[in-house]
């Protein structure tokens, strides 16, 4: 007896659906403990074997060990060869027992002094047939009680014979969430030869009355039938699925003599050879419902989401349990999708941190939590509560961009359910899929995604009546979904959906005339308006960039945005998302954005490559690369930047641009105008539906007075000097440092030069000029312009081009890194031939040389002998800063070159008049 008492602290735990047994007797052993017999029986109330899915059958697990004869200290013993230490039984997935409806037996009642328990009759949920060796040897039938327990286990059962008390504690297996019972450290005080445990399908069924144990009785006496107050509610339930393959049980047993050396047996059939193939799934009720409420009914707003999936509970003892949920597919309406605003500051949980397949506590970072989950199941007294966490991109069970985990701690186990977030890459439509859910019942699963400005979802941008459609598949009918549709009306703040009125901001950091200063352009779009599709900016006249010495990103690299550092000229910042806290890219600590100078693109001589690493929070979507063609207005040299379409969706996440900010900040790259007149950055901003708006921002630089203006123009005639000769004219303009650029130039030739009307022959039409198809005969000269902004001078032919003036215009087509056209109007002023360049680009030019042909192509004819008297031209130049510069330079000719020589000049190939 004393030895039996010592067993008490070593009582075992066992499981709800599986059984753990405690050995009571020591047995000498020299070999591993092996089961001599094992058996499982599932029977209906009428005694037939049960394979009906979801049925509440009576469950019996029996096992025995071999009987061997041993002699110890002269005493002969018959018993098992070794003393049983642990016995475990793994139940098939989906098989469970539910202790919640039943009364419990407290520890005080179970372990009370004396020979028997004081457990209430209503707490009996089965019986045990014991065959013991030793002092209490023989066969005994005792009650199996539903014991009260702590929060660390889901249930506990126990039986007692005299002083030997056995506890059976279930645990939930990680992974398939099946039930396994584990009996550990069984006592060696008494030998256990055989055990048969009976779990009743419906403990309250009167047919068990003869198997109930009276209070204050050591065991069950069948002749003393006893009623019970236990409800007639199911305790044990068969699996609810009917897979094709048969299920099986697995039993493990080891001994004190050889701990850890298990005898493991698969039990694919019952004792009568019937496989565990469940059937009759069509008989199980399945009536799920879903209620989904967004956190806001405002259009185009970040929103949380409250989802409650409910399954009608077990229908009680009379029928079959409701089928369990296997898979859910929640299909959100078009427009309701993942919100980029949620990503900032978010973390993600790796597979290792989650520890799928284990009961270890997850170690997900706090930042990965995006909601709460509460699961109320009839199997447990308290609901499971936990977190919804974001999974690491791609490194998740679905290898998907987006996935979540539901993590909730249960008594003695962790529920870890991965869910896939499937975003349509074209539309962003969101589906949330949970598959292979535990084959266990629950009443409600409540997912509460956090709300507020950084909520994970965003409502549709347009008001309307939407629906969240959910397909719920059961284990009983895994291919036949029950469709649940939940209306969702978005009916607040509907006005913002259609407008498009983005704001443009632009300016330079150092608004001083002629200075080199970073340039910033920003487009701001109001939340709720149509999204931005394309951007086109035209910079103010004179706002230029120095390309001299700047590396150009090779075209082979530009497409992928992998440009060399030397070609970087700035950065870009974008703000995307909805709500009060949109996502700013780049995020701190993430890869920076870059603006690179690249070569020709879409007919433009240069381009910009904007590379925005789409990295935010735990996500990395690679680089967003947007090319922008850079053209120059050939007349004004205004920079025209025209972007490609901006990406509207990335990995299924719609990109709502709130701000697009371009900073051209390469030192000494951008150059300010030298005019202090008010100018403007103009733009054409196109929305996704093609709406175009043209916001502009006035710009103005100052301190123009500090700029000088004193360009020098030299005019040289070459060729015949006699009257009627057709000279060649070379005009050379030079400028000094820190000078304003030229705005207007008028050159009036002296009366010694007339326009030779007979030489005005072929004229390039404006259409031909625009197409760069001027006839060769329309070329009357050549021009070359040197600018500090470019590596090479611009140069090209000088044409006579048709105009709306009395005479054709004299147009220099300057080609090179950019094409520029300089157009001069020819007229007469004070009887002299005047050429006026009304629109000279506000661009720095250090030297400009214009050469008009002589001879037969000369537009000039000497009206007198040039060597008889000196002649001067009249030059009037206006600087971009408004300063006027006049000069009357002498016409340099060969007379001066041949000082004291003859005046014949010569060289003019044209005929004299």
């Amino acid at each position, binding site marked *: 007896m004393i030895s039996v008492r010592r067993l008490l602290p070593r009582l075992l735990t066992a499981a709800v659906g599986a059984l753990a047994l405690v050995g009571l007797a020591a047995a000498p052993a020299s070999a591993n403990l092996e089961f001599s017999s094992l058996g499982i029986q599932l029977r209906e109330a009428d005694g037939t074997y049960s394979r009906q899915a979801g049925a509440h059958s009576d469950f019996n697990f029996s096992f025995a060990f071999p009987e061997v004869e041993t002699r110890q200290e002269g005493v002969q013993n018959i018993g098992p060869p070794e003393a049983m230490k642990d016995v475990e039984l793994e139940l098939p997935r989906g098989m469970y027992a539910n202790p919640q409806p039943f009364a419990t037996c407290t520890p005080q009642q179970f372990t009370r002094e004396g020979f028997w328990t004081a457990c209430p009759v209503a707490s009996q949920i089965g019986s045990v047939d014991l065959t013991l060796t030793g002092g209490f040897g023989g066969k005994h039938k005792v009650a199996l009680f539903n014991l009260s327990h702590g929060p660390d286990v889901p249930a506990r059962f126990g039986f007692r014979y005299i002083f030997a008390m056995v506890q059976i504690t279930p645990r939930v297996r990680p992974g398939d969430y099946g039930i396994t019972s584990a009996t550990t450290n069984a006592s060696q005080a008494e030998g256990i030869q055989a055990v048969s445990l009976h779990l009743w399908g419906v403990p309250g069924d009167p047919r068990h009355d003869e198997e109930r144990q009276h209070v204050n009785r050591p065991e069950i006496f069948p002749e003393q039938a006893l009623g019970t107050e236990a409800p007639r509610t199911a305790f044990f339930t068969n699996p609810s699925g009917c897979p094709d393959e048969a299920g099986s049980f697995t039993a493990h047993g080891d001994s004190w003599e050889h701990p850890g050396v298990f005898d493991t047996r698969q039990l694919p059939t019952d004792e009568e050879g019937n496989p565990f193939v469940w059937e009759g799934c069509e008989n199980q009720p399945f009536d799920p419902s879903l209620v989904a409420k967004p956190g806001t009914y405002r259009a185009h707003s970040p929103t949380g989401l409250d989802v409650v999936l409910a399954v009608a509970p077990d229908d009680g003892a009379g029928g079959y349990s409701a089928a369990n949920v296997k898979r859910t597919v929640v299909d959100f309406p078009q427009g309701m999708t993942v919100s980029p605003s949620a990503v900032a500051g978010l973390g993600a949980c790796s597979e290792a941190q989650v520890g799928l397949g284990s009961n270890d506590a997850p170690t997900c970072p706090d930042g990965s939590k995006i909601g709460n989950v509460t699961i109320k199941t009839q199997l447990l007294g308290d609901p499971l509560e936990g977190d919804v966490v974001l999974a690491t991109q791609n490194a998740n069970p679905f290898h998907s961009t987006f996935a979540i985990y539901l993590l909730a701690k249960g008594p003695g186990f962790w529920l870890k359910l991965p869910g896939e977030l499937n975003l349509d890459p074209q539309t962003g439509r969101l589906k949330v899929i949970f598959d292979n859910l535990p084959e266990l019942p629950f009443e409600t699963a409540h997912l509460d995604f956090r709300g507020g400005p950084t909520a994970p979802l965003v409502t549709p941008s347009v008001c309307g009546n939407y629906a969240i459609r959910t397909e719920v598949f059961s284990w009983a009918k895994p291919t036949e979904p029950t469709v649940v549709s939940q209306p969702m009306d978005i009916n607040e703040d509907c006005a913002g959906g259609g407008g498009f009125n983005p704001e443009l901001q632009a300016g330079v950091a150092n608004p001083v005339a002629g200075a080199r200063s970073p340039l910033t352009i920003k487009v701001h779009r109001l939340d709720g308006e149509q999204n931005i599709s394309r951007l086109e900016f035209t910079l103010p006249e004179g706002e230029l960039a120095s390309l001299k010495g700047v590396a150009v990103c090779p075209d082979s690299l530009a497409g992928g945005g992998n440009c060399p550092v030397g070609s970087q000229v700035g950065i870009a910042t974008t703000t995307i998302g909805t709500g009060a806290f949109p996502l700013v890219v780049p995020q701190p600590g993430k890869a920076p954005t870059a603006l690179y100078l690249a070569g020709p693109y879409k007919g433009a001589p240069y381009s910009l490559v904007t590379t925005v690493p789409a990295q935010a929070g735990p996500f990395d979507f690679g680089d967003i690369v947007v090319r922008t063609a850079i053209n120059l207005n050939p007349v004004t040299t205004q920079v025209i930047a025209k972007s490609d379409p901006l990406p509207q969706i990335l990995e299924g996440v719609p990109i709502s641009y709130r701000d697009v900010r371009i900073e051209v900040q390469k030192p000494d790259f951008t150059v300010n105008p030298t005019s202090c007149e008010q100018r403007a950055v103009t733009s054409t901003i196109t929305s996704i539906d093609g709406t175009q708006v043209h916001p502009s921002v006035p710009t103005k630089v100052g301190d123009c007075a500090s700029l000088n203006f004193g360009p020098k123009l030299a005019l040289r005639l070459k060729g015949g000097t006699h009257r009627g000769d057709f000279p060649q004219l070379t005009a050379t303009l030079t400028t000094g440092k820190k000078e304003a650029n030229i705005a207007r130039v008028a050159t009036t030739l002296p009366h010694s030069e007339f*326009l*030779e*009307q*007979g030489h*005005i*022959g*072929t*004229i390039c*039409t*404006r*259409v031909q000029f625009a197409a760069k198809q001027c006839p060769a005969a329309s070329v009357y000269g050549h021009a070359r312009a040197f600018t500090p902004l470019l590596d090479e001078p611009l140069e090209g032919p000088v044409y*006579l081009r*048709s*105009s*709306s*003036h*009395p*005479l*054709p215009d004299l147009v220099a087509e300057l080609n090179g890194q950019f094409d520029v056209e300089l157009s001069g109007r*020819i*007229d*007469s002023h004070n*009887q002299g*031939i005047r050429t006026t360049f009304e629109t000279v680009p506000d661009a720095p030019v250090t030297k400009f040389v214009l050469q008009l042909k002589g001879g037969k192509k000369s537009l000039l004819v000497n009206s007198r002998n040039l060597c008889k008297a000196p002649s001067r031209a009249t030059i009037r130049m206006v600087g971009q800063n408004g300063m006027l510069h006049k000069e009357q330079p002498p016409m340099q000719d060969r007379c001066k070159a041949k000082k004291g020589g003859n005046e014949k000049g010569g060289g003019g190939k044209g005929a004299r008049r």
Partner: protein
Amino acid sequence: MRRAGLAVSAVLLFSLVAQAAAATDISRDEYRERVEPICKANTEANERILAGARNRVRAGEYGKAAAQFRSAAKALKRTRLQLLAVPMPAGDEPKLSEWLDGVKAEVGLLERVGQALTKGDLYAAQKLVVKLSTNANRTNAGVLAFEFTYCWFQPSLYT
């Protein structure tokens, strides 16, 4: 041939009428004051005469367009006769004579454009328009120093 260009060119042709005028001691400014109203009237008349000619050429109604060009030629011819009647500054007689010759050539070219259109020969009409433009530029260049406001051709509108 660019039909549109052809039509537009005709619209804005000014007409010049002239009578033979002997050189006098009239100043260049006085001469300009006397001829400019003549040119202005022709310009306005031609706008009426040639209204819609461009569209007719486009529509293939060459006959009607041709008639408009012939009318424009007549108007320019009358204008030239009026201009010839204005006395010329003594020193400018060669230039102005050359100018009026250019106007006469323009009259002839307009008539030939009309004839080409009557035949439906657009290629010929196009070539004539180029000549109209070149002749107009040369004619304008000869009187550049007179700084006329109305008495010049606008050749860019031929093309």
